[in-house]
């Protein structure tokens, strides 16, 4: 079985006579904006508005990834991650990877210009758009260039956020989420 690959040919098309940029097979119009402008918008806008902006951004990434996979529900773990990470990279949001901690799904993004508080709704909405599942996200850590986001149910994500806020290391929080005593 050949390793899945991401085909980046014609992924982004610049129509200079018309002054437009299009991405994906559907020809969705996109903008090329400075990341500092988006960061300033996220800081100045209300939290709900910033999260709404992030979720809209993530949904577009998820849809383009599903368009590459065909049947996303039948896609293997490697195939899904490859196409989703390709679309995240085309958007300029960093390098996406998946970590499996027991039964817990953790998405790791490195080198993202967005803050961690914005990357969590981006990833969550991308997965919802790709799989059709309702997911919740909990920011586990943001150290340097690496952001870890737990994908779980609403209740589980809320408990993990509470444990981390009380000082529990995120690794121990994942253990407690599995029913352990840690």
């Amino acid at each position, binding site marked *: 079985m050949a390793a899945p690959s991401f085909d980046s040919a014609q992924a982004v098309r610049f129509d200079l006579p018309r002054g437009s940029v299009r991405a994906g097979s559907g020809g969705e119009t996109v903008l090329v904006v400075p990341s500092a402008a988006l960061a300033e918008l996220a800081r100045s806008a209300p939290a709900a508005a910033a999260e709404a902006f992030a979720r809209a951004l993530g949904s577009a990434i998820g849809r383009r990834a599903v368009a590459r996979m065909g049947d*996303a*529900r*039948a*896609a*293997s*773990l490697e*195939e*899904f*991650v490859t196409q989703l990470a390709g679309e995240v990279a085309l958007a300029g949001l960093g390098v996406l990877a*998946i970590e*499996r901690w*027991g*039964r*817990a*799904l953790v998405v790791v993004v490195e080198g993202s210009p967005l803050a961690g508080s914005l990357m969590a709704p981006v990833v969550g909405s991308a*997965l919802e758009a790709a*799989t059709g*599942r309702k*997911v919740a996200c909990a920011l586990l850590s943001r150290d340097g260039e690496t952001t870890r986001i*737990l*994908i*779980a*149910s609403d*209740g*589980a994500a809320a*408990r993990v956020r509470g444990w981390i806020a009380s000082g529990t290391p995120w690794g121990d929080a994942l253990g407690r*989420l*599995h029913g352990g005593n840690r």
Partner: protein
Amino acid sequence: MISKLEGLLARVRTRASEGHDLLHTMPVPAYDPAASLGAPAPPSAKAALADSALEPEITVDFEVQETVIDLSEPFDDGPVARPLDSRERIVASEASAVGGPRPGGDELLDDELAGPPSSSRRVIADEPEEQLSEMAFGAADPPLPRHTPPPESGRLPAAPEADLDADVTGVRHTAPTVPPGGDAMLAPDIAPRSLTPQVTRAFLGASQGVASVLGQAQSFAPKTFVELLDASLALGS
């Protein structure tokens, strides 16, 4: 009366001179209690010399009373209890010093003949016979020292200075032990031996219940991404 005293003085001089000569020339004879006590005790030599030098004319009017004690008869009450005059004490001390019987004398004599104990640190003197033979014929061999002589103290003499050659070092080269003939020519003691390990193993007895299995190992291996997503969504529910 004077003539009688002069005769007595002459007797004293004669006996004093005889006693002085006997003390210097003759060995001490065996003690005869009867004879000693029967004869008058000689005066001391010092008194005799003083008398002979000065020769005073002394007028003494007394009579000499001599007491004779027969020592051959045994005493019933042990030692002499009554006071003795000076001559009796002298005779009695001579008797005890020269040859008289001593209490427990036989046992003491046996101890002296037995020699010193083996643990004695005193130097054992040579036997009188050996001394006499050495005086007569000379010592045949020098006697061995009875004790280890103490070590000599003081400075040690310096070693003679060697004539060192600057070109000569302490490195010494040996002749090749392996002849050019090959291994067959090797001596048995220098032939290469096959190395064998010295194994040390721990003795661990059979035991039960060392490990206990609390649950099955994690066997979750999702085949699709959605399967993993569903498992993660099911956590904590």
